[in-house]
């Protein structure tokens, strides 16, 4: 009689070798150069792809198992949220503006990241990075899908959620995130990895997901906490990949250092700008705030970024060139953005509002060096205008930065009372920037950025030709519903009425 012999379970390292490295092969009827045509032109020199380490040693079988578990947990909560009128547990419907921005700008960025990682997973010759990038590509599309699915529950009740795909393509503020990913995807595979894998994932995404999702928990939004933490659980793996990539490239050849440093300089600044709006979500849009943007920057920027660049110093890597300019803007950016969003709220598919007296007390406590001196006087004046029945609307469309595509709301690094004006002429054509950082990025690759589709100048070209009503139709913005001040919005009325019904017997 045959005895069943229990197979010896593979150890982690052995399993990783068998199920990842052993999947690779040497091509026999095509040259390696023909199979991987994009891996050389950026100037990065790789001598031995087998030196690539995946510290988690995650293999595809384990990947599917744990991802399935994450999905089950996610849908259990999403179902409970939908079945129990979870939307009425929010602290306040003002909170939804942060979600609308997330849906219109960040979820499509997850999809863009999916495409980018699918591409570089094909373009790298090493089997280690191929598998890691493939997993990340699947993660990113999962993030886009779970986010859209979670937020679709709010679309049944509230405005501004109904046309995120049109708005991803056409509304002005989403071009910031879209152009950021287009920039990275149209670069070579190594630059993409430093841009997204390292600079964005490792250095910056903690600032987006961790305090923001904790904030969602504080504000009663279980749906967002769930997709946020579910996505973030993949992020730890992505960050580790980002750190491995940079170590691998730097250890392969000393000639790689200046190329990598230039990418870090560029992509730190691009990422800092694209995530800037998170400062406003944290300081203004969460009715109950978990920490200020300044506090989040101290933890995840100064402390964590500081430790990272101290560690990378052994390779000769320096902190990003514009790190100090970023640090100087921390006390100002959330206020500068929110003032802009309020005065341009006729053109946004989310609501803005004037901070209450209570909010302003919190802001002056959190920003003792800036709020009362520079920003309170403007808010007080805006409050007076609203009280007089002439709420402030700024119909002068905004000058946008050619590189980051944000409105030029930023001030001189050392003078918060003066707008930062930067311009350059390239091939007899004039270009404007919000900062020295963005000007430098442009000047390093002008042919790339002169193609920028800047939504404000586009408004005066075909097909809209300067007609604001036509523009609203074109971007699927429902005037009087999706846009304007929260104080007079349907979202506010409905939320208060439904919450009243839920908590009384009237």
């Amino acid at each position: 009689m045959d005895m069943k012999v229990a197979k010896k379970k593979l150890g982690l390292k052995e399993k990783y070798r068998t199920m990842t490295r052993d999947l690779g092969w040497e091509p026999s009827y095509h040259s390696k150069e023909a199979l991987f045509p994009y891996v050389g032109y950026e100037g990065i020199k790789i001598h031995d792809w087998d030196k690539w380490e995946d510290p988690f040693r995650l293999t595809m079988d384990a990947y599917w198992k744990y991802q399935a578990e994450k999905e089950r947990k996610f849908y259990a909560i999403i179902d409970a949220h939908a079945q129990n009128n979870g939307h009425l547990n929010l602290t306040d419907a003002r909170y939804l503006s942060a979600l609308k921005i997330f849906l219109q700008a960040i979820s499509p960025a997850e999809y863009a990241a999916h495409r980018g990682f699918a591409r570089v997973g094909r373009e790298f010759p090493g089997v280690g990075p191929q598998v890691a990038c493939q997993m990340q590509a699947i993660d990113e599309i999962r993030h886009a899908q779970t986010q859209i699915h979670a937020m679709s529950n709010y679309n049944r009740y509230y405005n501004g959620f109904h046309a995120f795909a049109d708005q991803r393509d056409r509304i002005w503020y989403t071009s910031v995130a879209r152009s950021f990913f287009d920039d990275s995807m149209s670069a070579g595979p190594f630059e993409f990895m430093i841009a997204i894998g390292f600079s964005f994932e490792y250095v910056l995404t903690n600032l987006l997901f961790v305090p923001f999702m904790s904030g969602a928990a504080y504000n009663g939004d279980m749906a967002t906490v769930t997709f946020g933490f579910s996505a973030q659980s993949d992020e730890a793996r992505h960050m580790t990949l980002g750190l491995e990539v940079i170590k691998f490239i730097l250890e392969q050849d000393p000639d790689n250092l200046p190329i990598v440093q230039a990418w870090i300089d560029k992509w730190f600044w691009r990422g800092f700008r694209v995530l800037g709006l998170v400062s406003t979500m944290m300081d203004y849009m969460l009715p109950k705030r978990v920490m200020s943007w300044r506090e989040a920057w101290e933890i995840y920027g100064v402390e964590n970024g500081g430790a990272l660049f101290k560690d990378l110093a052994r390779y000769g890597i320096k902190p990003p060139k514009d790190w100090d300019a970023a640090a100087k803007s921390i006390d100002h950016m959330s206020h500068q953005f929110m003032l802009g969003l309020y005065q341009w709220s006729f053109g946004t598919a989310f609501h803005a509002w004037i901070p209450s007296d209570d909010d302003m007390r919190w802001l002056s406590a959190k920003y003792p060096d800036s709020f009362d001196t520079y920003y309170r006087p403007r808010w007080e004046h805006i409050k007076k205008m609203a009280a007089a029945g002439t709420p402030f609307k700024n119909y002068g469309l905004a000058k946008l930065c050619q590189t980051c595509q944000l409105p030029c709301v930023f001030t001189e690094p050392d003078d918060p009372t003066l707008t930062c004006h930067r311009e350059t002429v390239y091939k007899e054509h004039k270009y404007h920037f919000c900062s020295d950082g963005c000007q430098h990025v442009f000047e390093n690759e002008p042919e790339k950025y002169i193609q920028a589709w800047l939504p404000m100048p586009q408004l005066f070209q075909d097909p809209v030709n300067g007609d604001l009503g036509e523009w609203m139709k074109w971007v699927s913005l429902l005037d009087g519903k999706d846009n304007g001040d929260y104080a007079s919005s349907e979202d506010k009325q409905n939320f208060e009425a439904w919450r009243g019904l839920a908590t009384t017997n009237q």
Partner: protein
Amino acid sequence: MPVVAIKEYTATPRDRVENFNGKQIVYASWDRHLLFAAPFLLCLPPETPFGELVKGPLSMLVQPDPDAAAIDWTAVEWLKSNQPWTPDFNASLAANGIGHKDQLRFRTPGLNSLAPAA
């Protein structure tokens, strides 16, 4: 620097003046008056007299600032492309040398209701 690419990389600017149906872009901003979150983007025919740009769209846009009524347009200091500059109010934008996407700035020393005293 050229874009690092697999072959020669050249492109066409997206915001060429030909795309604006006979008009051009002019940016204008009021220094140290940050109630307006960013410089204004105006789209005008190059034949527009400079005085009309000031009396028309620019004066209207700056109304919400408490200093707006006190602006003496004959005394403001102008900058074009960040350099001191004197406009001719009767001449057109083109005759004033204001090109497509030029940035105009103006200063009104002494008017600073919403800014901290310097």
